[in-house]
Each structure stands twice: as C-alpha cells, then as structure tokens.
C-alpha cells in the first residue's frame, strides 16, 4: 500500500480534472490519453486508502469542515462523491448514510489506522471500491440468429441499466454481434494493457460451434453452444463493467448504448489476413516472453509471477477435470434413464399388483433423479467449468500485463544504454576539442536523459498500477470464486434434499408390498 504515500497535490489536480469531466460532460473524457486514464485510476485507487475516512465523511457532510487536518485531496474526494450521488445514486446514497454513525474522533482514529495497518482493511477497501463504481447491471437477454446458410450470424441483445451519468440513458438495449465483442476487447486492451490494467479477455471464437449453428435449421442441437456463448459473453461484459476504469471507457460506453450497428471490425475475423497477422504477432510475443527476462529486483513481482504460473496450471487442470466430471454426470444421466426404463418394464411384466406398482414408482423416482442429474450436469459445467475457463483466460490477461511491464523495463534500459553511448560520444568530442559538435551532442544527451526519465517513470507507474490492479483482481477473484462455490454447494445441497424427498415419497410404496 505504498500508493498511500503519494503526494497529495498531484492527486488534487487530477481529481479536479476528473471532477470536471464527471460534472460537465460525458464526451470530454473521450480524448483522454492512456496516461491520463491511468492517473485517474491512480487517483481513484488512492481513494481506497481513504475509503474508510471518506465513508465517514460522506456520512457526515456537516462535520466535514472539522476534518481539515486530513489530507486536502480527501476533501475533494468527499466533495466529488456527494455530487455524483445526488446525480444518480440518490436512492442508494441515503442507505449508505445510515450504515455508520459518524463521529469525527473516530474518523481520525481510523485514518491513522488505515495508514499504519492498511492490509487488515483490505476487505473493506474492496467493498468501498465497489461502491465507488456506479451501479451497472448488464444482461444479455436474448440471442437472435440473423441471415441464412454460411452467412448467418448470431446477434446478442444486451440490456444495460446504470446510474453512471456518462451514459446518455439509465437503461439501454443494443444488439451486438460476436465480432463486436472482440472489437471492443481489442480496443480496450490496446488502450489499457500498456498502463498495467488487467483487461478481461473476451470469449474465444469457435469456428466449429458457429458452423454448427449456421448449418442447423432449428437451434436444438446447437442451443447448448449458443447458451454457453451467451453466458460467456455476459460474464465478459459484467467483468469489464466491474472495473472502475474500463467501465467508464468511452468505447465501452459506446458499445453498450450506441443505437444501431457498430462499425464492423475486420481485424477480429479468425480467417482474415489480419487474423493471420495477429497470430504471427502472438507467436512473436510469446517468443519474446520466453527470451525477455528482467533481472528482477522487485520480489513482489517475482513471487506473483510464480503464483500466477502455478495457479494457471492448477486452473487448467481443474478445468479439464471438471469437464470430465460433467461428462460423467451426463453418462450417469443416460444410465439412470435406462434403468428407469427397465424398471418400468419390469413393473409391466410383474404379475403381483403391489410389486408392480412399486416398481413403476421406482421407475418414476429414477426418472426424476435423471432430471436432477441433468440439471446438476449443467451446473457442473456452467458454474464450475466455465469459472475455471474464465480464470484461465484471465490469468492470460494478467500475464499480458506482466509482460507489458517487462517491455516497459526494456525500453527504459535501452534508453539508458543509448544515453550512456551519447555521453561517451560527447566525452570523445570534448577530448578531440570538436566544439562545434558538442552542442548537438549535449542536446542529444538532454533528450535521452528525458527519455530515460520517462522510461523510468513509465516503468514505475506500470509497476505501481499492476500492483494495484493485482490487488483488485485478487480480491475480485476471491469474491467471484466464493460466490460461485456457494452457489454450487447450494445446488448440490438442493439436489441431495430433492433426492431425500423423492426416496421418502417412494418408501411407503416399497413398504406396501409385503
């Protein structure tokens, strides 16, 4: 939590800018370059440290003046927030207000505590962090098949409800194609990966699955695929929207609310020339990843890299195992159905009335169980396998960001080397008394000194951003996993409960035989 020590004036300035953006325009934010974006991010994440404080201040607008000994920027933050709140979160804001009873002494005490023992408050930080983001609820409600034959494609109906004033409407419905999703991802990645933001990856293109959809007249056989993709795309959007910076990216907003079609993005097609180029590019990058090594002086990164690799491996394995599990569950489903059938048959043949009825009941029970297994198989897949798959992909994004940092490091070191050379040139010139050229050399040196400085700045910034991003990412990850695991366990429990019920209903029938 070193960012807590960031010099306040810098932040204040940035906050000012942000403030203006938020209040007066939605379009003005668009031209913001990656660097300014990251600064905005820096500022907002600085909030994290002050959250507790801010929270209390939000609650106690009246006492705000009293907390003047607290950093200047926190005041600005506090001012900014109620404004936004009154704009859009008018309904949610009062609820939050009631949560804590504000007292200034407490707020001071907490402020001190945040600085000293920041890690212990991480969990709360996250919650606060989430509240900083505008409410946004994205759903893909429908999938439509457009066109016929090989030119057919799927269109997804996206419904967005948001309190973010950057949107023109609180609720918008748009139709987007799969390639649009790839397009928006490409745009976001281009802008934000360079500054160390973990951009959630878009689902992968599936030529086979899509071809099936195209070939099938009715979407019975392919509905599984369509539903999978719909769910994957929805998760992608929700994940992106959960990121404070990405959520307010003008391209992302445009994607969610612009009526009509987006310009076709050609570079995303798997079979196009651009696709091939991208493939080459990727191969090149992965080669680069192997060869490029930073003599790491930051232990944190070294450790994280190892963790990410280990987790990546684990998740991949898990993903395969869970898919196998889902397949086995499906098999069990088929077998249960078969057994139900033959139990019914046995019931038909049986000459004893009570036994015959009991066997038919057994068949019915097994049929119900079959349905249960099928639902469970879906849960295995949609909850667990897809979760693992998503995180395998996300691990890729994390690695991308790490790699970006190494690239930044390299260009910084390159600049340093060039600078050394330039200095040597100048020294030589001085020795040879070529005074006419010394001026030029000096200019070179100044230029490269600046470049080195910028390189270092960039590197430090990206390192810092990545740390912050990782912290956020990891928190999100735990929350996400916990959510899904709870859901999954509850489904398992639910199923056991149903099983109990089924068999208990059956039991009297069995007892009635003898």
């Amino acid at each position, binding site marked *: 939590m070193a960012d807590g020590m960031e010099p306040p004036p810098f932040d204040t300035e940035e906050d000012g800018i942000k403030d203006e953006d938020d209040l007066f325009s939605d379009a003005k934010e668009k031209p913001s370059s990656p660097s300014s974006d990251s600064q905005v991010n820096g500022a907002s994440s600085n909030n994290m440290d002050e959250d507790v404080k801010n929270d209390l201040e939000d609650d106690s607008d009246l006492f705000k003046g009293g907390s003047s000994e607290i950093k200047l920027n926190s005041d600005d933050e506090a001012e900014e927030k109620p404004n936004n709140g009154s704009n859009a979160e008018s309904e949610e804001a009062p609820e939050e207000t009631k949560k804590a009873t504000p007292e200034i002494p407490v707020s001071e005490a907490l402020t001190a505590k945040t600085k000293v023992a920041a890690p212990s408050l991480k969990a709360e930080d996250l919650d606060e962090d989430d509240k900083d983001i505008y409410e946004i609820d994205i759903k893909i409600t429908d999938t439509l098949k457009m066109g016929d034959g090989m030119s057919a494609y799927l269109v997804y109906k996206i419904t967005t409800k948001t309190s973010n004033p950057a949107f023109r409407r609180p609720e918008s419905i748009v139709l987007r194609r799969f390639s649009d999703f790839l397009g928006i991802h490409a745009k976001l990645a281009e802008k934000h990966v360079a500054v160390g933001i973990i951009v959630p990856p878009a689902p992968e293109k599936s030529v086979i699955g899509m071809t099936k959809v195209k070939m099938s007249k009715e979407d019975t056989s392919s509905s599984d695929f369509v539903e999978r993709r719909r769910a994957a795309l929805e998760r992608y959007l929700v994940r992106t929207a959960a990121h404070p910076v990405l959520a307010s990216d003008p391209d992302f907003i445009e994607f969610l609310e612009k009526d009509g079609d987006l310009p076709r993005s050609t570079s995303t097609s798997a079979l196009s020339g651009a696709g091939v180029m991208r493939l080459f590019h990727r191969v090149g990058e992965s080669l680069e990843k192997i060869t490029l090594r930073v003599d790491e002086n930051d232990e944190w990164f070294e450790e994280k890299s190892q963790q990410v690799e280990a987790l990546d491996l*684990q998740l991949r394995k898990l993903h395969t195992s869970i898919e196998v599990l889902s397949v086995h569950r499906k098999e069990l489903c088929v077998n249960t159905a078969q057994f139900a059938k033959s139990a019914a048959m046995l019931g038909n043949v049986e000459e004893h009335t009570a036994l015959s009825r*009991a066997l038919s009941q057994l068949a019915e029970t097994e049929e119900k169980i079959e349905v249960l297994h099928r639902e469970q198989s879906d849960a295995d897949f949609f909850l667990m396998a897809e979760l693992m798959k998503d995180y395998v992909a996300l691990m890729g994004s994390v690695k991308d960001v790490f790699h970006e940092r190494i690239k930044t490091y390299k260009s910084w070191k390159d600049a340093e080397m060039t600078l050394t050379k330039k200095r040597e040139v100048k020294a030589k010139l001085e020795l040879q008394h070529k005074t006419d050229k010394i001026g030029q050399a000096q200019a070179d040196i100044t230029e490269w000194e600046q470049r080195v400085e910028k390189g270092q700045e960039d590197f430090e910034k990206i390192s810092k951003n990545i740390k912050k991003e990782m912290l956020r990412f990891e928190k999100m990850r735990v929350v996400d996993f916990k959510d899904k695991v709870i859901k999954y366990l509850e489904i398992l429990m639910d199923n056991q409960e149903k099983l109990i019920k089924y068999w208990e209903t059956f039991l009297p029938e069995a007892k009635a035989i003898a």
Partner: protein
Amino acid sequence: MEEEDVTSQFPAQNSHSENHDGGLPLFQVVVPEAVKRAENVMFTLQVTIVAEEKGLVLLRQYEDFEWLHHNLVTNNDIRGIIVPPLPVKPLSDPKSAESLSKKQMGDNTRIMRGDQFEHDCLSVQKYLELVLSHPTFGRDKMLSSFLTEQEAPVRARLNKGLITRLSSVIDTARKSNRKDVDEYYNTKRYFATEYSKAIKEASLNYNKLLVAQWRLSSSYSTVATELTSCTADRDEELVKLNRVLKALSDGCEDEATCYELKSAKGETTAGFFLDLFARYSDSLKDMHFRRVNDLIEYEAAEKALEKAKPPKRQAAEEAFETAKSNFERASENGKTELNRFTQIRLASSASFLSEYAELQVKISQDFYTQLLHSRRALDKIHL
C-alpha cells in the same frame, strides 16, 4: 452389516417354509469372508446346526459349491422344482479383476477397485439359505455332510460339454412355444420368459448405473485433489482463495464419498436383488422347460399306449403311468414351487426396495449435512 441385513431377512422366509416343512432349515450359515488362496477363492462358512445349537467353521472353495449343486440336482427329483441358482464364479485372477475394474471405472482411472469378495460371500450365503430352506433340498444328505465335515467332499470333474449346452438351447427354443394343456401354466410360462428378459435387462442397466456412479465419484475425487494442489502461505488473497477452494474441495469430496457409498450400498441391495433374480428367473424357466418336456413325454406315451399291440401293451402302460405321474408331479410341485417363488420374490423385492430407498435417504441426509458444513465454512471466510 451386510450379513446382518441378510440374516434378518432370513427368519421371514423360514417361517414361511416351516408351514410346509417343519424344522427347516437344519443349518444356518453365515459367510463372513472369502480369501484368495493360490488360484482359488476360499469362502469361510460359519455353520450353526440348529437342532444341536452347535457351530463350526468350514472352508469351501467355489468348485465345492459347483459340485454340491450338481449333486443336489442329480440326486433329487427336481420335477417342478425351481432350483436355487448357483452364484457366478468369483474372479480370482488379478487380470480379470483388473479388466473388470477398468470396465467399471474407465480406462484412465488411477483408482482400482479392490477384490469384490463381499459380494460373492453374500451370493454364496444367499444360495445356501435358499437351498437350506427348500423343502426338497433342505434335507439332502450331501448338503448335510457338506456343511458338517471339515473336508470338502471329493469332487468329480464336471463335464458340461458345449454340444449338450447347445442342443439344450435349441431344444428350449423349440419347445418353449408349445401350447400347454393347462392355462395356468401357459400364463406362468409366458410370465417366466418375459420376467427373465425384463429382470436381466434391469440388472444390466442397474450395473451400468452403478458404474456411472463409480466414475462420477472418482472424477469428483480427482477434482477435490486438484482443488487443494496449490499451496500458498504468505499471500493473503491467495490464502483466502485457497480456503474457498478448500471448501469446494470438501464439497466435492463429499459428493465423491456419497456416490461411492451409494454405489457400494446399491450393489448389495438393488444390485444383489436384481442379480439374484436374473439368475433365479433362469431356474424358473428351466423348471417350466422340464415340465414341458414331461408333458411331451406324457403325450408321446399316451399315443404309444393307444397304438400299442397287446404283447407290448403292458410295457406301454407302465411307461404311460410313469410319464403321467411324472408330469402330474411336475405340475403339482410346480404350483407349490411357483407360489414359493412368488413369496420369495415378494419378500426380497419388498426388503430390497425399502432398504434401497432408506439407504438413499440416509446417505443423502448425511451428505446434506456434510455439504452444509462446507457451506457454513464459506460463510466464515470474510473477504
């Protein structure tokens, strides 16, 4: 536990057979275990002589039972009798056990199922029970000596030639469609054929279901192991993540054990019942077949008697009388036996179905509680 379950069924059947034949069974046998000795599987028999209240422990191998069965069938008049079916031969060599395990668990499993002798023990015990409580076989001398002498009787090699088996199959096919003189037997025979088909199918499908459950269970435990494979000590978020994964892993472990239990218990209840009656239904068919044979002989003898010339008339009459009494005995015995069979079937079905349902309820309840623990553990993880 399994043995207890079966013995508790035992008295119910006793009381039934006592109605016809007081004092049966003469012995009570429990088969607690079987061990592999060289190539053979040795069953331990705990025999209680009911009249003397004396007990002894014997060792018998599968071939001894085969020999016993052969003798029972050949030394007794089995007209109209539904002979309790001999259990299938236990798998004793490691290769066949491995191939069975692979068949059940899938080819790339790391888990091998152990020897399944418990199931064989149960089958043997059930077989002895059925034989001992049977009015015809229950007092057999051979059976008594089999259960009282330390040494197993000397066996002769049993020749079950391919040709005899094949000819009997053809015979069965030819004669099974024959119209019966008795409508009762017509319907019963039809039932036997249909029932046999249905129960074999059910048994097969139930075994497939069990296999699918084993596989599911094994893939759950694979997932459970993989969930906990990543260790992290220092990193706070990773520790939290691992705690979440641990809860999931526990849940998966629970599911794995749950299905394993369900399969194991299902095998000894539903699986056992279906398997027994799949074999029993063959005995039922055999009984009908033998009776039809008797009927054919009877009709042939009748015709021969009509055509017989005086010098041979005497012999023909005798043959006719024998055939008639044979057939009549077969029909008469058959009726009691069919009733007995229905009784046994009902009692076994009732006990298997309710046991099965109770087991399912109990296992599900247990694991519901287990899952609840994992679920609660998650609530304790504060994010």
